């Protein structure tokens, strides 16, 4: 060991891997209904929704908590069973 080893951890998306795997239910946005209010984006604890022109879910990381669906004022998000 030449150098002193230090417990340094660098910022990484997916620090624990693809947490999409944890999901039991999967949020699916019905863009027909969606008003682009971005409340789903605001309340996603995982930062797994991108605020583009419309909200886009990062399925690699979304854990399927369902908050977005629960908070969407127009119920534009459905939680469907993951297969």
């Amino acid at each position, binding site marked *: *060991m030449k150098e*002193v*080893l*230090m*417990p*340094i*951890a*660098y*910022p990484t998306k997916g620090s624990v891997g693809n947490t999409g795997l944890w999901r039991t239910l999967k949020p699916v946005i019905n863009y027909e209904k969606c008003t682009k209010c971005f409340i789903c984006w605001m309340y996603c604890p995982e930062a797994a929704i991108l605020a583009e022109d419309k909200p886009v879910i990062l399925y690699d990381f979304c854990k399927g908590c369902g908050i977005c669906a629960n908070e969407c004022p127009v119920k534009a998000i459905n939680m469907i069973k993951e297969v």
Partner: protein
Amino acid sequence: MPVMPLSGNHAAAYAAKLSRVEVVAAYPITPQTQIVEKLAEFIEKGELKAKFIRVESEHSAMAACIGAAAVGARAFTATSSQGLLYMSEMLWWAAGARLPIVMGIVTRALAPPWSIWSDHIDVLSQRDTGWIIAFAENAQEVLDLIIQGFKISENDRVLLPLIVAWDAFDVSHTIEPVDVPNQNVVDEFLPKRRKYRHTLDVENPFSYGNLAYPKDYMEFRYSIYDSMLRAKDVIEQCAAEYDRLTGRYSGGLIENYLCDDADIVAIAMGSISGDLKVVVDKLRKQGVKVGFCRIRYFRPFPSEALAKCIEDAKTILVFDRDISFGSEGALCLEVRATVNREGLDKRVYGIIYGIGGREVRQKDLENIIVKAYKEELNHPRKLLWLNLKHV
């Protein structure tokens, strides 16, 4: 370099000042208080550009030093006894986080019952933590070892925090002439603290100390172990360089006092060393081939240097101002282990002395050495408690 009448504690404060410490966070405890009082005064009076954090406990004192060191500041604190125990968790933290911090420990017995007098168990009980541990014999060495301590601790092959310990009252409050180096000499010896790879920085964000799974954790511990071994060289180099700049060799892993041809070697640490040297001189005059090996650094334990020092001796007397209950003195354990590890064959006697300030006279030391010389001591299995009442 003016000679000043300084107590061990004031010598420590001067050393920290000369080392240009940037953050001092400390909590009062007898017999450490004079150190931080003096530093508070230096800082309040503008003689030292540093922050003094008047923390609410020792746990917080070490935490504040850790926080300061983590962003790259030179931090110093001091404590004793209960205070050291109370900050113990943070000692482990400082070492595990590889932060160079220097701490003065005025050794003091542990309660209950309350005692404010010297006993090495407080600092020795922290011997596993990954801190480098030095013992000073007198006020001059307190000063010299603290200044060297920063350099050793900040060496980037070491990067471990460092304790300089000295005896309560015998050194902490005893006033002696101390040769105080000039600031420019110290500045040359000890440059400004540098930024390390692990110094926190908003420009280069990382998270420090996250959970490490079994596949990763062990190597961090090995690295501390490894750096401790490397510190041995660094300690010797620093002592040599300090000597070059100040004209005073006052450092290094051990002190070999007439051991080379000795049949009996006494081993000890701290303030009793002066008395032991006087006794050795006296016995030498009487033809007794006795030597004294002073352990200056208990961590890393100087096994190789010690082994060399006692190579030719038959009998070893280890003076411990501490006891590990259910075993023996911590120093004696290390000495025995060294003897076994190096494949030497020696009779090693453990002596417990001075616990909680129990008085020891030169006569007592002399008696034991003479007894050992005459092979009149009991089996080494029986630990000898010096000057114990009614047992």
